């Protein structure tokens, strides 16, 4: 039997934190055969990225301590000196990072960056030959007009093209192993599908091994042969990808799989809006432009949309489709530059701040990032109390009682009033955000990517909470997200946006099951599936 390409034995990595150390990886062992593909999956904090960095010895400059053994193509990474490590990095094992914009030097042409890496590992290559190689690999990863685009700087590339360029950099030195850390997390689904397809092709063509780090089981299912499920720095389960997904042996794996939103699961109790439901919000030809003159960009273009009391309208689209701009206009955080916006019959589209004040309490918003949308220097109780204080109708004691009630309603300890945002996990912080939106007793809440920063299990809990709240309080929700499966779980009606316009609209089930617009069809087809039968369909 041939030697394994990667052999990790009893790896432990600790980071200094406060007085002591935090174990990010604890007693992990695994192997990867040459040309094999393994995905490390797990929720945030499971240590999966730390393992990926350890494979290239990248933990060294971070103050982390690593014990155990890591062998990559025979090199002992933990014991290697700097010179050997530099030969391994890029030459034997190359890495692709999550955020393709910040991972490239903003000042230099992309071709030059690839050529530089090539020359590090192929000593004696002339500059001209290295440039030619850069163009060759850029062409291979599907950058059109590669010889010209090699001279572009990263900001002139789209997100997908940047990730292709990073993969090209990895290819430049013909490594035996590709380590990809969440390579598609920052990308839209259609682009994600292209990048995953490219990785599959390149593996087949070059025979290189792949270690894929991802939180998305769907991405893993499509791309690798084996899965390693991690939790708290340890391996929970390992096996062939189909076996782990179809017949998981561990409870944690089962829980993780159960939490993954499925495209074919309908909203429990979904109901088509009835004509006699009161129309809450009505947008007609709503338009928003940014900038002036020649540089004007139309983010939302002539969008007409109706939200009825008690229904959930899902808004999906890729980045740049205008869905966030639309959401902000619906609650009038942003002023439309054209069209009409009516709330319960009153035109609120052109109202100034003072005129909007009576409506502010009834139109609320929940934001994507639960970290930055809460003031870190105010206790969560005060943050939730703010909208009540502004309203000025309740006494201090009544406000405190109402905040405790709200905390309990969103599933938090009412005694947490005086605690600060950093003491909470991401999911708990999002609950705080929801409690704050509920405080002034709104009729409509616009949720802008409320769960996209959360792990799947937390995601499922927050989605469930939103569904319950809506039913109990009779709220109308506008749920904006790029994740089609999540949107399906909460929506009665669905709106698909592209380039600032609505391309398709209808009851959620009929849009998901019988998409009419080719764009919607492409979008749905690009979503990675967990189940085999679905993937075959």
């Amino acid at each position: 039997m041939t030697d394994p390409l990667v052999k990790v034995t009893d790896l432990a990595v600790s980071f200094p934190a406060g007085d002591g150390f935090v174990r990010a990886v604890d007693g992990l062992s695994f192997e990867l055969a040459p040309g094999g593909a393994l995905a490390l999956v797990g929720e945030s904090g499971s240590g999966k990225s730390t393992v990926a960095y350890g494979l290239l010895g990248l933990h060294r400059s971070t103050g982390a301590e690593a014990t155990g053994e890591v062998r990559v193509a025979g090199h002992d990474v933990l014991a290697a000196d700097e010179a050997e490590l530099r030969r391994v990095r890029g030459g034997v094992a190359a890495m692709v990072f999550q955020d393709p914009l910040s991972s490239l030097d903003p000042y230099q042409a992309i071709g030059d960056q690839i050529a530089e890496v090539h020359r590090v590992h192929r000593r004696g290559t002339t500059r001209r030959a290295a440039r030619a190689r850069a163009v060759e690999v850029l062409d291979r990863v599907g950058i059109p007009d590669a010889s010209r685009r090699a001279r572009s700087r990263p900001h002139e590339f789209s997100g997908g093209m940047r990730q292709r360029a990073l993969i090209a950099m990895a290819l430049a030195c013909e490594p035996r192993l590709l380590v990809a850390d969440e390579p598609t997390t920052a990308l839209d689904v259609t682009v994600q599908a292209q990048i995953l397809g490219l990785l599959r092709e390149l593996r087949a063509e070059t025979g290189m091994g792949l270690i894929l780090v991802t939180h998305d089981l769907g991405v893993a299912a499509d791309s690798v042969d084996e899965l390693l499920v991690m939790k708290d720095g340890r391996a929970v389960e390992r096996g062939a990808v189909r076996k782990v997904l179809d017949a998981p042996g561990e409870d944690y794996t089962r829980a993780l799989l159960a939490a993954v939103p499925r495209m074919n699961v309908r909203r429990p109790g979904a109901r088509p809006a009835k004509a006699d439901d009161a129309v809450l919000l009505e947008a007609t030809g709503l338009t928003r432009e940014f900038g002036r003159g020649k540089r004007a960009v139309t983010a939302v273009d002539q969008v007409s949309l109706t939200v009825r009391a008690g229904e959930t309208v899902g808004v999906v689209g890729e980045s740049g489709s205008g869905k966030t701009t639309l959401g902000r206009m619906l609650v009038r955080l942003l002023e439309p530059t054209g069209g009409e916006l009516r709330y319960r019959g009153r035109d609120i589209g052109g109202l100034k701040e003072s005129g909007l004040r009576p409506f502010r309490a009834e139109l609320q918003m929940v934001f994507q990032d639960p970290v930055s949308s809460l003031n870190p220097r105010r206790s969560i109780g005060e943050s939730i109390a703010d909208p009540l204080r502004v309203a000025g109708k309740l006494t201090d004691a009544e406000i405190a009682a109402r905040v405790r009630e709200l905390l309990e309603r969103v599933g938090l300890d009412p005694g947490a009033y005086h605690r600060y945002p950093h003491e909470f996990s991401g999911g708990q912080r999002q609950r705080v955000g929801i409690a704050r939106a509920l405080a002034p007793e709104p009729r409509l809440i616009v949720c802008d990517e409320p769960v996209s920063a959360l792990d799947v299990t937390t995601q499922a809990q927050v989605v469930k909470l939103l569904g319950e709240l809506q039913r109990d309080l009779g709220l109308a929700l506008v749920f904006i997200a790029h994740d089609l499966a999540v949107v399906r779980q909460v929506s009665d009606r669905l709106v698909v946006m592209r380039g600032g316009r609505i391309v398709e609209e209808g009851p959620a089930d009929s849009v998901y099951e019988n998409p009419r617009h080719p764009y919607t069809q492409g979008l749905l087809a690009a979503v990675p599936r967990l189940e085999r039968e679905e993937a075959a369909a």
Partner: protein
Amino acid sequence: MSLYFLRRALGAVLVLLAISVVIYATFYVAPGDPAKLACGPRCNPEQLRQVREQLSLDDPVYLQYWHFLQGVFVGHDYSTGTGVMHCDAPCFGLSYQNDQQVTELIAQRLPATLSLAAGAMALTLLLGIGTGLLSVVRRGGVVERALTWLTLAGIATPVFISGLALLMVFCAYLEWLPFPSYVALTDDPEQWAWNMLLPWVALALLESSKYARMTRSSMLETLAEDHVRTFRAYGVSERAIVGRHALRGAVAPVIAMAAVDFGSMVGGTMLTETMFGLPGVGQLLVHSVQTVDLPVVVAIVMVIGAAVVIANIIGDVLYAAADRRVALR
């Protein structure tokens, strides 16, 4: 771009006007009789009256300020008793000490000050960025710790100590250099450089410490960015990373600060000038303050203000040139 400069130039003029109001108010309206100062200690009431008239000191304050502005923008005529002396724009009046035009006085002193500032700034950047980078490349070692202490010592040592030490060692004891005496660049470039060497070094030792620390922290920040991690992950050596991928982003704020510091050096190096006997603007300022020569003080403060404001604009432009992500608006 040209619109940007137009807007900044307009802003600069407004800032300078505001400075002039404050300065004018402070020096002319504050207690003390300018006429007595201008007239001198042995002054009889008749002479005092003449001086008041000549300087229009009996006019209301706003009118006086208006005349001051007129002088700056279009020039001013002074009666000298026997005839009329014209003072071209920008006219900041006449020195109380010797009736020389203030503009001329300053113009005589500028070359020495600019020589000192330019040379010292060049040396400061070389030393400061150099040691800053060295302490980053050798971080965690003895070299870094030594440099940290040295730069701290540099910041803490006033120029009259380091300057004196330099003079004693190189001029008195080793006799490698002559005691500095100012030679104009246009007269003899070689002698100019030799004579400026010690003042440059003295000033640069003080200033470069600040730059070394700034370069170091800015570099460490840049090295923590994602794109630097990419090149580490591809086996690019630390030296190449620092030189090719981090330097440009890291020195951008340093260069921007250098431009501003250069502006303040034009007026603010009196200690070094006095120490080395350089006939510069700083010395003139010290002398004018001692003798309460108000027109000169006001003019020098305006020059310093103008230099800082202009340097600030240049600093912003340099920053934007180094960091493409910054747009000039």
